[in-house]
């Protein structure tokens, strides 16, 4: 246990010291939020929904930003693989489970910072929601990030460093678009069904708890569990195979 704590401590230190990665992960969602919400902070009912724009975009960008932060783990892993560090690490007693755990915790730290920063910005723009809803939304968001943690690790071990940026960018864009982060997917039609099979849709639903939305139904929990299981299994397999030179 002490072993893992020391290992984790230095992994977190590395994550926070990579300032460009850390600040960009936090900065972009915040920038988008301020650009959209600050000029329109008096809009009290976005498209007649009765939800203020500053609130709608705060929760939306919390899900987008934290998803990005989790998938960003993949970029870091891909770079570490390219340098050959992973081969060295494989010769230490660090278990696959501990390796994954460390990566997930580091991802969560960045994601939690992103969410916190957006909450502060939202509050600064005058967002008010009941404390219970803040807590419920945040907890469900954190649970909703689990499949993205596994996906990030999977991508990091499948794709090489020179291709990982467009891969993660494309996957993030696709998941955001189909999951309804930028605009609501309708209540019917093909897109609605496709969206419900994606983890990003349920992540957005989690953030909508803050705007009076319902928590996940059975389908939501099942979809998230399925993505987590499949991505974790595939990520472990990818990690196990990923020991070649160069």
């Amino acid at each position, binding site marked *: 246990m002490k072993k893992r704590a020391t290992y984790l401590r230095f992994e977190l*230190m590395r994550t926070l010291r990579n300032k460009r990665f850390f600040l960009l992960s936090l900065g972009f969602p915040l920038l988008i939020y301020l650009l959209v919400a600050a000029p329109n902070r008096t809009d009290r009912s976005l498209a007649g929904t009765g939800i203020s724009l500053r609130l709608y975009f705060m929760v939306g960008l919390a899900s987008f930003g934290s998803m990005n932060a989790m998938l960003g783990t993949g970029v870091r892993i891909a770079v570490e693989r390219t*340098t050959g*560090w992973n*081969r*060295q690490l494989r010769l*230490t*007693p660090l278990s696959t489970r501990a390796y994954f755990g460390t990566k997930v915790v580091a991802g969560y730290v960045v994601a939690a910072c992103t969410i916190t920063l957006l909450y502060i910005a939202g509050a600064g723009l005058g967002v008010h929601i009941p404390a219970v809803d803040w807590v419920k939304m945040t907890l469900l968001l954190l649970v909703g990030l689990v499949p993205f943690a596994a996906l990030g690790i999977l991508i990091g071990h499948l794709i090489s460093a020179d291709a990982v940026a467009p891969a993660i960018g494309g996957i993030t864009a696709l998941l955001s678009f189909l999951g309804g982060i930028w605009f609501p997917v309708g209540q019917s039609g093909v897109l609605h069904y496709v969206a419900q099979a994606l983890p990003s849709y349920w992540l957005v639903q989690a953030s909508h708890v803050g705007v009076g939305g319902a928590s996940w139904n059975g389908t939501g929990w099942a979809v998230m569990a399925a993505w987590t299981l499949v991505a974790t299994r595939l990520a472990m397999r990818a990690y196990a195979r990923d020991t*070649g*030179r160069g």
Partner: protein
Amino acid sequence: MPRGIELRQLRKTYRTSNGPIEAVRGVDITIEPGETVALLGPNGAGKSTTIDMLLGLTPPDGGTVSLFGEDPEHAIARGAVGAMLQSGQLIRDLTVRELLTQIASLYPQPLDLDATLDLVGIESIANQRTQKLSGGQAQRVRFALALLTNPELLVLDEPTVGMDVESRRAFWGTMRDAASHGKTVLFATHYLEEADEFADRAILMARGIIVADGPTTEIKAMVGTRTIRATLPDVPAEQLERLDGITHAERRGESVALACSDSDAAIRALLGAYPQVSDIEIGGGSLEDAFLELTA
């Protein structure tokens, strides 16, 4: 149960765009605990692939690996193995001291950090970030990393590649101080002198097979000097090995390749015993030439 290192009939073929390459073609190696063994061979001999299979980084196509009676995965999991791989940078954003502390924390009985820094001569860069190090400094940090973990088996894949003569000497001096306490050491190199000075035993690899395995003095005599090639049908290789100055003979169809400890004596003996010999060529004394001659 075998206590040391056992590789049995290891094979590995890589698929490439130019067709399959048989990197390792049936390698058997046994290393007793506490032995220091050099794996010698030119580039492309299969040394690194053999080491990758020994460490469990590359799954063999055939054959078995046993480290102290366990498979590599289990031996590594209990911290019995330390390695300095041929390539590989260090992860960034930690200082040398932090990186060493992080990795040492995973091992059951690491050496003292400050003592190791001192031994490898990197105290002065202990507080530098890893991404700011020069190539030579990073190489020493990787060496410190391997020593620090204090493993039963230390594997070094061409640890001195790219070093000048001075640094090489310093490196092996440190190795002698640090790792001679009952550790099993396997290192790959293409410098015969390194094997001669540091190892008890040398294993010679070329083109994916082991061509010789014995005390370093024997290996040195076998490959250290010149090689004679000649056309000489119908004389068994063993008979040629009995001639003066010849340490090893190989037959390839009509021609023979002879490794010589004394090529002048060998030529005289050869012409005296077999006047019909023709097409005599004497090759240079480099290790690479000797390998090529012995294994073509």
